[in-house]
């Protein structure tokens, strides 16, 4: 395979596959947070704060994939 093509293919695969896990994770995370708020609206502030912490940690995984894709395209 042409190395240039392999690079681009790898970058696309890294980003696409790397986004699956965080996507599922964010769905579960935000869904559960909404459920908690619906059950107990009085703790919504606390739930929201913790939800954002969780979002930050989960989303970082997708961004690692993004960085890997960038490295593949522009550095490797």
């Amino acid at each position: 395979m042409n190395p240039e093509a392999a690079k681009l293919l790898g970058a696309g695969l890294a980003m696409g596959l790397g986004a699956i896990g965080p996507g599922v994770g964010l769905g579960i995370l935000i869904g559960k947070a909404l459920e908690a708020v619906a059950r107990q609206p009085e703790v919504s502030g606390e739930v929201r704060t913790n939800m954002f912490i969780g979002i930050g940690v989960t989303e970082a995984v997708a961004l690692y994939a993004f960085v890997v894709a960038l490295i593949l395209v522009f550095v490797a």
Partner: protein
Amino acid sequence: MNRRRVLLVYLVLGLVALALLAIIPGGQKQEFSVADEFQLEPLVELPSIGPVDLSITKAVVYLWIAAAVLIVLAIVLSRTLKPTPSRFQYAIETLYELARGGIVGSVMTSGRATWFPYIAGAFFFVLVSNFIGLIPLPFAEHHQWGFYSATANLYVTAALALCTFVFTHYAGIRKSGLRYFAGWAPSSAPPVLKQLIFVIHAVSELFRLVSLSVRLFANMLAGHAILGVFFAMALIFQSYLAAVMLQGGSVLIYLFELFVAFIQAFIFAILSAVYIGGALEEGH
């Protein structure tokens, strides 16, 4: 009935206009590459001291702008504080309240007064640099107008994350001395397991540094890359049709990026508060 006919006429006219746009060939060919937008060309060449290059790049200029905006804001606001706040003062007070109650107050259990200035400072600095990144400024190559953000640069975000990293361990050691490190492993575990947990914890501390910096950097970089691609769609496709249709998309992406700019500042500050608060609780 009449109204429907008017609507139909507009629809047909719109379709004809779109078809015309599709037929008309685009303007002169221009090269566009997203990667060029993030190249750091020195604006002012300065001698380097050892391995440290002191040249002023656009990242440095954006940092200066963010610092200047924050300083001016702070001075002006503190001089013109009123008991009945103006809209502007109210907006800043809301952000301050968010930093005080929403971030420090809800996450940290002790040492709030000591660490509030750092966390609020990080929050406002990241917030202002993220928002400045969404304003076109003439610091691209050849003084062209372009988007860039200080926080879309790994060196800047790594320096910010390093501040949090250093302050975390400083806070822990100041609070509980060397017992802080004993708190890294549970005291009830058997000795061999304890050492293993200690090593794992030490590695996770280092990974916090990586994740904190890469998260902010990659979010800003990805946002700016998407904005650049959308704005340059007309150049890429060489067609007015694509340009007109994608302007709507670029406005939506821009609004989303405003949201991301705020959320990322919030997440950076709240994770700093979580890490520092955690270090204060360990060791006892």
